[in-house]
């Protein structure tokens, strides 16, 4: 179910996410030390182009990456295939991407 193209996309997004995951976890370790609050998060992220780009890229990459990953799982474990599988995976990618960008927008916008 995974062709060369999807493979490339999945590995590429994984590579893109690699430093982002490290960054994200580091921020979390740092952030939780001061106790989490909406205000605290927003003060750090709001209006920051850097964080918008950081999390925007993360959200897009993860949407693609997870959709392809779930494609394999849905095929192998749920037996889905063909157009239905492709449609579902597009749905997951667009859904995750949309939700993700919305979340990024709400904390950085």
């Amino acid at each position, binding site marked *: 179910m995974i062709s060369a193209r999807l493979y490339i996309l999945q*590995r590429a997004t*994984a*590579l893109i996410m*690699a430093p982002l*995951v*490290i960054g994200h*976890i580091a921020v*979390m*370790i740092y952030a*939780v*030390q*001061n*106790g*989490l*609050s*909406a*205000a605290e*998060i*927003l003060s750090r992220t709001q209006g920051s182009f850097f964080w918008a780009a950081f999390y925007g890229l993360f*959200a897009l990459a*993860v949407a693609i990456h*997870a959709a392809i*990953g*779930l494609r394999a*799982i849905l095929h192998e474990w749920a037996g889905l295939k063909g157009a239905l599988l492709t449609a579902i995976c597009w749905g*997951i990618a667009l*859904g*995750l991407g949309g*939700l*993700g960008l*919305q*979340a*990024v*927008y*709400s*904390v950085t*916008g």
Partner: protein
Amino acid sequence: MKLSGHRKQSLWFAFILHRISGLVLALFLPLHFWVLSLALRDPAALDGFLSWTDFWYVKLAEYGLVFLLSVHFFGGLRLMALEWLPWSPAQKTYAASALAAGFALATSFFLSATIYG
């Protein structure tokens, strides 16, 4: 899925760990995004959520998620190394190291959250 004999080998466990972690992370993501987007619409609700994190069981769940993320991360790096670097016979060691590293990273997150949080 019964654990039949052929699956009783460490690298199969590494595979299933990678898959489960990816799957759970993917399922968790929509929730995560939804909670964050509350920041715009309803900061108080977000705070309400965040205050939950004071409960130990939520902390544990959080720990679990961070563990899954870090173990998936290291596992992913391991897989890409397997695919793209010259073959190494030490695959079991790498898988064990990825697990250990994921564990260490998640624990340090957990500790800083419990000590300071």
